């Protein structure tokens, strides 16, 4: 029967880190359990393979340094060419880096001032209430009687107007 404790033991650390007691426990269990034996075999062979793989290293060949130095020199030349081929763009970029905060704050100030100007400078439309002379004269003409405004004739309107003015003049004299 598969023992998860054994499986965990062979998975959580490299096999070389297992103590002799742990190895004995694994051996005694795998003697009766084919499934865990296969897992242990696979883990052990994997461990050996990894040891072999890690020990297989190459030394640099005698030509490697010359080759790598040539590549570095080439990279350096490419870098210099790139810098010299785009001096204007590079200059503009540096200038932008230096001045971007100033330019951004100036733009913000211009926008703020424009908004303030628009909001405070709106012309006020003259309303009836703000022009007492005009409104009073018109009101006086039409509040006179119960006739509908549309029914008044021109002569009635003029009569009414002149009589109001005449009364006003008499009142002022008194």
């Amino acid at each position, binding site marked *: 029967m598969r023992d998860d404790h054994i499986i965990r033991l*062979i*998975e*959580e650390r*490299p*096999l*070389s880190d*297992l103590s002799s007691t742990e*190895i004995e426990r694994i051996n005694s269990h795998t003697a009766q359990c084919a499934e865990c034996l*296969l*897992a*242990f*075999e*696979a*883990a*052990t*062979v*994997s*461990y*050996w*393979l*990894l*040891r*072999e*793989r*890690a*020990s*297989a*290293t*190459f*030394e*640099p*060949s005698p030509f*490697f*340094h010359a*080759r*790598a*130095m040539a*590549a*570095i020199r080439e*990279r*350096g030349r490419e870098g210099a060419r790139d810098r010299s081929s785009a001096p204007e763009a590079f200059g503009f970029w540096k200038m932008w880096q230096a001045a971007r905060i100033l330019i951004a704050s100036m733009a913000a100030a211009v926008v703020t001032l424009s908004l303030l100007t628009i909001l405070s400078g709106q012309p006020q439309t003259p309303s009836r209430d703000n022009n007492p002379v005009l409104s009073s004269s018109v009101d006086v003409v039409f509040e006179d009687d119960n006739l509908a405004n549309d029914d008044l004739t021109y002569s009635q309107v003029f009569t009414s107007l002149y009589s109001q003015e005449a009364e006003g003049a008499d009142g002022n004299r008194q």
Partner: protein
Amino acid sequence: MRRYSRRVFQVASRFFRQRSDVEDAAQEVFLRAYTRLADYEGRGSLEGWMTRIATTTCLNLLRDSKRRPEATITGLPEEEGEWLENQLADLSIERHRASENSLVAADLADRVLATLSPDDRLALILIDGAGTPIKEVAEMTGWSESKVKTQAFRARRRMREAMEKLLTRRKESKSEEER
């Protein structure tokens, strides 16, 4: 460059099996180190800094070269099969036949590792293969120590499962031959 080239080659050899690949990777490491030399702050040794650049560069090259790991191992050359059987005949952790057909073993290891992701390969070769401490692997890769442990745990499981399949198939074909 001469001072660190052995170290860089050692790191690159753990990722790549062909000499030409190792040399290409090592050259890329020195190019990156040259372009990033201004980033070196003087904290820690220059060798440690180079090792970290070598590890991350090789890991990225491996990720770029192989986006998807091979699903399974399809057939083994005879010599690799024999190596496997010799090991199984005398199963013990202490015994390590380093001298016996180590090239065959390294090739077989690469075949099995090809079924794993580049991160799994790195964790296994460094920790289980080279015996590098967890802390050092964390410094080399830039991963946290807990990530290194988790990666190694999962990688060990995946490699064991791949190896179990290989061993089962090998045993089955052997028993068929005997019949």
